[in-house]
């Protein structure tokens, strides 16, 4: 027993030590900087961050956009995933490949495409005006809407794929059974599908929410300085003002939000299952 334990430790040690020294140590030192001011250890940097109106705005905007993106992705994701399960197996494979494809393409390329589409004379505005839906070109670029669209496109596959895999694990006959018993689609979704696919939703929700919070390229290109998010603010504070105190605070906030999301959603998934 002790021998296999030692063998196990030896196999694990290199990776663990590498992460501890090469990764967690520098990150830890950076984060600790958030808790230090000229006067020594203190929460002063946090107080200053949360009393600066601009930073508060950025904080809430990041949070709000993350929630909206996750909620919209979840609703559309369910419809998509259910629609995919109803296609033939060969189509299912193709559709999944199409979902995976965007994940493999550079976020810079993905975001850049939206510049061409969302502009004043871009594809979308031209189309809208041609159809006659709008008279004036809509201003989309450099607004929260543009960032929202970019983020949805970026993270939608990460929502659909886990939902799809948990939908595929559903017993084959639950939905027809519900239909036979006369339940409405909504009732079937709410009472059967949602509880049974909760885990997929939690995985997809975590990936989407945390991904949106920590995206850099999308808000940088599509939002610009009028739609700062925590990650773009961090870059600006460091590269323009050498302000490592604020950078540290933002880092702490982002990591705390990521961990809290992971933890909370995992709790939700498991407690509900236990209660059932």
């Amino acid at each position: 027993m002790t021998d296999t334990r030692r063998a196990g430790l030896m196999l694990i040690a290199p990776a663990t030590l590498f992460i501890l020294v090469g990764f967690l140590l520098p990150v830890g030192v950076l984060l600790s900087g958030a808790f230090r001011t000229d006067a020594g250890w203190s929460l002063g940097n946090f107080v200053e961050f949360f009393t600066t109106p601009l930073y508060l705005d950025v904080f809430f905007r990041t949070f709000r956009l993350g929630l909206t993106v996750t909620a919209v992705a979840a609703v559309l994701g369910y419809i998509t995933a259910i629609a995919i399960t109803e296609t033939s197996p060969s189509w299912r494979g193709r559709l999944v490949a199409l979902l995976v494809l965007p994940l493999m393409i550079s976020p810079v390329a993905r975001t850049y495409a939206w510049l061409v589409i969302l502009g004043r004379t871009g594809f979308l505005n031209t189309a809208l005006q041609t159809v006659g839906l709008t008279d004036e070109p809509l201003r989309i670029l450099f607004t929260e809407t543009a960032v929202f669209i970019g983020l949805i496109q970026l993270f939608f596959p990460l929502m659909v794929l886990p939902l799809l895999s948990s939908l595929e694990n559903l017993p084959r006959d639950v939905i027809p059974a519900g239909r036979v018993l006369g339940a409405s689609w909504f009732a079937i979704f709410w009472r059967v599908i949602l509880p049974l696919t909760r885990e997929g939703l939690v995985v997809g929700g975590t990936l989407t929410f945390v991904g949106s919070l920590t995206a850099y390229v999308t808000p940088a290109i599509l939002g610009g300085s009028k739609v700062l998010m925590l990650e773009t603010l961090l870059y600006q504070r460091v590269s323009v003002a050498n302000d490592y105190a604020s950078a540290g605070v933002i880092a702490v906030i982002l990591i705390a939000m990521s961990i809290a999301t992971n933890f909370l959603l995992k709790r939700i998934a498991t407690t509900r299952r236990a209660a059932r």
Partner: protein
Amino acid sequence: MAIRTTTLATLLGGLAAAPALAQDLTISVYGIAQDEYREALYEPFEEMCDCTLTVETGNNSERLAKLEANAAAPVIDVIAFSDAAALEAANAGLLAPLDMAQVPNAEDIYDFAKDPIGGGMALGYTFYATSTVAVAGEAQIASWTDLLSDGVVDRLALPNITTTQGPLALYMIQRALDPEAAEAGDFTGAIDLVAEHRDEIVTFYERSSQIPQLMQQGEILATAIGRFAWPGVANLPVGAEWIIPEEGQSGGLNVLAVVEGAQNVEQAHRFIDYWLSEEVQTKLAEMGADSPVNTGVELSDDQAEGLTYGADMAEQIHFLPPAVQIENREDWLAQWNEKVAR
């Protein structure tokens, strides 16, 4: 005599780098147009001095930070900065006064470049104008405040306060409102005016390369940019024009300085002198790399198109004094963040 472009890190660590020969020189410059610089300046200088030139590149704030970190054991001999960054470095004791006797070519540069940050600490090597640009016939810009007038403001991009151009644009808007306050570095009026139109303004740009795209896509009709960004705008099919409003135009000056405690002070001066020579300044200007400060440089109209060239041009520029910038920057940023950015 190959030029070794080392990473910031090796320079900083110093440990890994071989000890430099007494004659060798390490310089720190902006990352732009390095191919042109190599051809017009670095390689000829290496031929001349029979030494090796090591080049570090980066923007103002990151290079200033490294300079500060290495103050005890400097690795850089000559550094290129914006005038404001140079003054900041000088105030922190990171620069050494220049010995003008060793820089005879400084006689031939524009007066405003001769001692831009005071104390004989630096010499200007290039300058640029910052003014308004608009799509011809679509936006009437007679004054800087016209940028914020109806019909223009909702198709306007202004430089963000965090860019070098940001304070320059605010300075000129403030000059239009109240020249005295502008000279004192009080931009409250300008910032309030921008804040009032905050939602209408398309964006506060952080990279002047965005401007051609925004203008070509019809996103904006007007903006304020540095002359170095003009070539990208000038040839757009929409037809943009460089407009100098009645208050004139602003601009910036980049300077060269010797680092305090530099290994090779004499060679550093020789390098600065060579950079300011008519020969090098002409070559760099002809390549479109930098606008000349040497008064002897003669350029054709074509060559001058992307540059800020000539005594007349220099005359019209209202430089924002570096001391005013340093003194007020925190205040501008705080006001901007409170009123505009949120």
